[in-house]
């Protein structure tokens, strides 16, 4: 896929590409123009200028006045607020795309039922959307978008409507579905964790402009804007998860171990488990800290980034950790590049995502 999308005037001017079999996350703060891009790709908002091309099929070409109407685009959309049809059952919602394209009722229902079963919501097939839980509705919406086998799957904030406990489970399932989807996957989100855990590449969109494109690793190692730094400044730890006798678990990364809470749905010894730690949850000390924090690391200050009233301090500990502290603390601890420091954080501060 080759997307060059532009909207004139204020709104958005975004150009990016995505390959089949790849998940691209369009990540940006609220009001950056993400939803505008979603509408444009779906064909619900004609671009003022520029082109949208999918598999050599020109969907929009503002200059030539060419435009494929939404119903003829091979695109499945999961909308932010799902937009399930309230008057149809879950099954009928999923079968809708097939019925609209002229599939016989029985065939459409069989396929819809198969999708619901794959996503684990077939028990709710005959429920109306208002009777579904958030997680169920989310999976029905995903099934509906997948039903007609589109060549582009477009997800707008797919997890934002869910509560935290459901989010982890659905994210896991979503990742499996995305990986199994053969076409192009475009994920639009304001949540860096969602983007980093689901996407192969990230496109950062700020105030209607693309500010950076790259893999999560590339952006993490060289953020090109304050927003990027803020977003990806989350400590991202990947490794094998082993249970600890004292409770909780040990996440063994290639660069060192951290103590983490034990998640419900992970087998001991699972590889590729992700731990996320917010820099603001890391406490820095000049001397070895006393106290209850189960993670105490030592390292030298590698870099200091000042951002307004806050400072981000990168420590060469094992594993390397980024802490975010106030300018006051920075001065009080006399932090400068090269000096040795202690860092501590509680095990429960690490958010665990199953692979």
């Amino acid at each position: 896929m080759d997307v060059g999308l532009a909207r004139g005037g204020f709104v958005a001017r975004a150009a990016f590409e995505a390959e089949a079999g790849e998940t691209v996350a369009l990540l940006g703060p609220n009001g950056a123009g993400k939803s505008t891009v979603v509408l444009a790709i779906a064909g619900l908002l004609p671009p003022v200028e520029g082109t949208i091309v999918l598999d050599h099929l020109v969907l929009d070409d503002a200059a030539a006045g060419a435009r494929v109407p939404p119903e003829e685009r091979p695109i499945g959309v999961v909308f932010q607020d799902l937009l399930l049809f309230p008057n149809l059952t879950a099954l009928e919602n999923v079968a809708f795309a097939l019925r609209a394209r002229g599939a016989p009722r029985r065939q459409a229902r069989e396929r819809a039922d198969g999708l619901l079963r794959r996503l684990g919501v077939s028990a709710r097939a005959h429920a109306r959307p208002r009777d579904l839980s958030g997680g169920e509705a989310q999976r029905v919406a995903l099934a509906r978008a997948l039903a007609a086998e589109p060549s582009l799957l477009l997800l707008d904030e797919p997890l934002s409507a869910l509560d935290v406990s459901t989010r982890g489970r659905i994210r896991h399932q979503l990742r499996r579905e995305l990986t199994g989807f053969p076409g192009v996957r475009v994920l639009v989100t304001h949540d860096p964790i969602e983007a980093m855990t689901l996407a192969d590449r990230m496109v950062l969109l700020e105030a209607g402009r693309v500010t950076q494109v790259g893999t999560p690793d590339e952006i993490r190692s060289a953020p090109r804007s304050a927003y990027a730094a803020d977003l990806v400044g989350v400590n991202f730890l990947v490794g094998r998860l082993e249970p600890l006798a004292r409770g909780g678990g040990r996440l063994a990364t290639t660069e060192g171990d951290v103590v983490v809470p034990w998640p419900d749905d992970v087998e001991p010894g699972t590889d590729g488990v992700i731990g996320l730690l917010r820099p603001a949850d890391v406490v820095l000390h000049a001397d070895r800290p006393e106290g209850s924090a189960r993670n105490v690391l030592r390292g030298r200050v590698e870099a200091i980034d000042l951002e307004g009233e806050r400072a981000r301090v990168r420590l060469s500990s094992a594993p390397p950790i980024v802490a975010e502290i106030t300018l006051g603390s920075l001065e009080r601890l006399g932090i400068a590049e090269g000096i040795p420091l202690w860092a501590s954080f509680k095990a429960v501060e690490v958010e665990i995502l199953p692979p």
Partner: protein
Amino acid sequence: MLVGLPVAGLLFRTPWSRIGEIAAGDVSVTALRLSLVVATTAALISFATGFPLAWILARGSFRGKALVRAVVVLPLVMPPVVAGVGLLAAFGRHGIVGSWLYDWFGVQITFTTWAAVLAATFVSFPLAVLALEAGIRGLDVRLEDAASTLGATRWYVLRRVTVPMLGPQIAAALVLSWARALGEFGATITFAGNLQGRTQTLPLAVFERLQADPDAAFALSTLLIALALAVIFALRGRFLG
């Protein structure tokens, strides 16, 4: 009080012992059957023509929209007898359209059942448009957008998404315009006349009977109210929950 007392008065004055006989009488049965045919036809015409208009009023943006809406609701605030006179001026034997119809096709509308239908439609049409317009306004356009991303053509969206979601408003439009058509008197008697079996609907029969046989008028009035209530309740249970 203002609503309750007249109804109570009617129930009080209704000759319950004779009600069966009056209701089964020739004049009553004919008027009742005619009323049902006229009101139902008028409600269906109001709905069919009101739907596209309501759609344009709710979704369209064009100059003079306020004027169109004002014209649409005019029959609501117009005295029905004036409506009847207006219909005469348009479709009467010497009306601007009526004379043409008569000269070219030999068709005369006045004093036919069609005249009664036309009069009833004229006064019930605004209610259908207003109910439908409110319903269409309340729809989430994005649901229709979602449907189109699923491959649904405009026509399919209308059939499978829009109209089903408008169910309660469609029911309301039909019930309101039907009830209004059922009660129409002034425009009907002015435009269609008071011919038994052709244009004498139940309200006209009531008015006529009030002179000759007041008891029968009271009985027929009670019947009319019961009929309207029955239909409204039947549809409420089904659509308005």
